[in-house]
């Protein structure tokens, strides 16, 4: 089973740049199913958290207005190659996704 998260990291001097992409429908709860006309219930990531070697480096809080298959990028200092970066998301119905990667 492929992960629901993809990540690319790059060192720029002492800063590491993290780009991430999640596979998630990000349903707003206002959209109708084109097949039957029923409202599709809201289903969206609420929090996306990045933890480097056990230290939280980013907490992103999302509403339904973040695009489908969300993209998020940020940068942080104080990391070195080989550090373990954990990316995890949780959504409004309790589903979760997680990916562990080594910085390079």
């Amino acid at each position, binding site marked *: 089973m492929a992960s629901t998260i993809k990540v690319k990291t790059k060192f720029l001097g002492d800063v590491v740049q993290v780009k991430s992409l999640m596979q998630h429908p990000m349903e707003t709860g206002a959209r109708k199913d084109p097949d039957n006309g029923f409202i599709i219930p809201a289903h969206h990531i609420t929090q996306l958290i990045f933890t480097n070697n*056990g230290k939280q480096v980013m907490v992103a809080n999302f509403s339904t207005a973040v695009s489908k298959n969300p993209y998020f990028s940020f*940068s942080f200092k104080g990391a070195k190659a080989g550090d373990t970066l954990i990316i995890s998301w949780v959504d409004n119905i309790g589903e979760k996704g997680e990916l562990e990667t080594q910085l390079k």
Partner: protein
Amino acid sequence: MQVTKRAFLQAGVVLLALAVLPRKLLAAAWPQKAFSEPEMNAALVGLFGTDVTTISDKITLKVPEIAENGAVVPVTIKTSLQNVESISIVVEKNPRPMVATFEIIPGTLADISSRIKMAETSNVMAVIKTMEGIYSTSKQVKVTIGGCGG
């Protein structure tokens, strides 16, 4: 002192993190109230306790002039303001204007990018909360009804 208090909290978070990692998410609660407000000022109050922000030219908000597709509008926000605590994206005319808010932890740069949905042509506001205050800058993004997709 604010800095000390923050450092103390930070240490607490790390300890907690060590205790419950790897599966548990430990962030502050998801700001449900701010995210459900249908009106921009109320959304700002929901998140910051006030809707008053100081317009700052130290914030760079990169958005397209005309969105190719309102469902996927690239947004980049960065700032040279110091002691940044959070960055938020607010779309004035969205049904629920608060789009996302990012906690900037010490060591993390105040420089983020994402892609957001816009219901119609609207001002997009980048709000930066620092230890000193709440700052913002806005830009209009036009959202058009497509023709046939090119």
